[in-house]
């Protein structure tokens, strides 16, 4: 490409620097501090863009390395792509993906529901409720998830029966923990309780970010308390909650692989079983990786649109969606032709 030589105008000094760093086409209009030609009007000075030789060299090196890596992925027989493709949509793998999704959804829904209760307790005016919520978060953030999971898995060993009745008094209704806590429910309980501690803090942060004047206005209008929460506070809190919540869901989604220690047939456990049988470790790890990537990508897309929904009213003119942007682009292409 030919370097452009723009003529400096007074506004060129604060012109936006082109984000395309590799091209080196930044139009920087800095005087070198020399006093020569001070009398010339700046509009007549020529601007020579800075040349970033090292940046170009680094860019080239990265490109070469990336190409090499991609080439290796395709041509190195050790990746065993035919094994990958045989297993990536195999029934046992799909079933395992389904289990992983279930664990994620249950963990997220229950975790955030309990997290909401904890966050509200923490923000309530009752020091007792706030203290309990604080202690919960403290405890469940301190205990490693895997320890907690194994604990739930072995609950039957600690308490053989759980029952409902008068506190410290007679039990009205009871059931054996053996039936209550199977491996799957132990996993869901463990993930949800762990998730709740983090969700509580994320939601609390969201509530704190809502301007206090909003609650005051709602109170002055006499809007009932629950309604204030649902209609005024939550939607505004969602803006700061969502990015963090999405992070949590993604890390829970991948974190479900930890329940493989409980012999639950989720994705990671399943590929371990398969490569234990046939010894094809690398392609099967790639199978799991591919599914984790695909589903995380889907979640990111959902996140984008949900965030957009809750941003309504925040900007004077909301930015177009990628789809709208693409349509506008093709329209201009057609018109210019």
């Amino acid at each position, binding site marked *: 490409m030919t370097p452009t030589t723009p003529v400096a105008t007074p506004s060129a000094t604060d012109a936006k620097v082109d984000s395309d760093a590799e091209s080196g086409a930044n139009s920087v209009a800095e005087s070198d501090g020399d006093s020569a030609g001070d009398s010339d009007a700046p509009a007549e000075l020529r601007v020579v863009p800075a040349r970033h030789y090292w940046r170009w060299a680094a860019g080239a090196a990265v490109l070469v390395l990336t190409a090499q890596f991609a080439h290796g992925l395709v041509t190195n027989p050790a990746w065993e792509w035919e094994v990958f493709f045989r297993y990536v949509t195999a029934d046992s793998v799909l079933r395992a993906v389904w289990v992983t999704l279930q664990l994620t959804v249950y963990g997220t829904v229950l975790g955030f529901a309990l997290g909401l209760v904890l966050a509200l307790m923490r923000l309530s005016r009752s020091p007792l409720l706030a203290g309990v919520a604080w202690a919960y978060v403290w405890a469940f953030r301190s205990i490693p998830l895997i320890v907690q999971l194994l604990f739930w898995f072995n609950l039957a060993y600690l308490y053989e029966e759980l029952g409902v009745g008068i506190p410290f008094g007679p039990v009205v209704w009871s059931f054996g923990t053996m039936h209550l806590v199977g491996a799957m429910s132990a996993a869901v309980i463990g993930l949800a309780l762990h998730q709740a501690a983090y969700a509580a803090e994320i939601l609390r942060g969201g509530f704190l970010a809502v301007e206090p004047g909003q609650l*005051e206005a709602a*109170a*002055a*209008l006499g809007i009932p308390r629950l309604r204030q929460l649902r209609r005024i506070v939550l939607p505004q809190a969602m803006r700061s909650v969502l990015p963090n919540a999405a992070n949590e869901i993604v890390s829970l989604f991948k974190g479900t692989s930890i329940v493989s220690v409980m012999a639950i047939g989720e994705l990671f456990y399943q590929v371990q079983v398969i490569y234990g049988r046939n010894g094809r470790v690398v392609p099967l790890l790639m199978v799991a990786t591919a599914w984790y990537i695909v589903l995380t990508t889907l979640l990111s897309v959902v996140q984008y649109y949900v965030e957009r929904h809750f941003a309504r009213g925040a900007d004077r003119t909301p930015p177009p969606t990628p789809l709208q942007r693409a349509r506008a682009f093709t329209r201009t292409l057609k018109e210019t032709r």
Partner: protein
Amino acid sequence: MSTSPVMVDIRGVHKSFGPHEVLRGIDLQVRAGEVTVVIGPSGSGKSTLLRAINHLEKLSRGSVSIDGALVGYRRRGNKLYELKEREILRRRTRIGFVFQNFNLFPHLTVLQNITEAPVSALRRPRTEAKERAEALLDRVGLADKADAYPRQLSGGQQQRVAIARALALDPQVLLFDEPTSALDPELVGEVLDVIKDVARAGTTMIVVTHEIGFAREIADTVVFMDDGVIVEQGPPGDVLDHPRQERTKAFLSKVL
């Protein structure tokens, strides 16, 4: 005028924040349909008084009643029992409050901002609330902005929406806390015009403002507050033009 019944009755109100006594014994009666304008230097307790009237601030001592009903408390014998939040919220629907910085709900449209409280607090049917909101928007000159979001409006327009939102509850009293001081000078007029229009319709109002000309125009009573007490009150012609107290004179000479 003075024959109409007392709508807002403020008796011996004290309010302290920790050791700092901000209101030091306020007595004030506002009659139905009257406009009372409160002026005074910064920090004199004007906002605190307004917030005490609708119980956004709890009183340390004294009482406020609207149309004979205590705000925030129930009296039994010689004791005041604080009401539950739900009852306080219900009584607040009779008191409209317009904030200095509007406090519109940014994620709701203008129309939703206005219909929210009538629907959720007064349980009015949605269609009825919507029609009323449209009529109010028309009255404040914003009929075409019903579906806009607050951030898409100018400050003056936002404050007019906030006034419409307060009016939607058909309050017995409207409280304004410096409704124009967050606005650019050229936007002040449009908001004052709306407030004047509401005053003319016979709504009981208490307005805190620094706009002395406006006070002279709409006030039936002007109240001058300083350091947590009412120093002087009376018709605008007396308090603003022939103040008797030195502190009032000193304040007016600074702001006029």
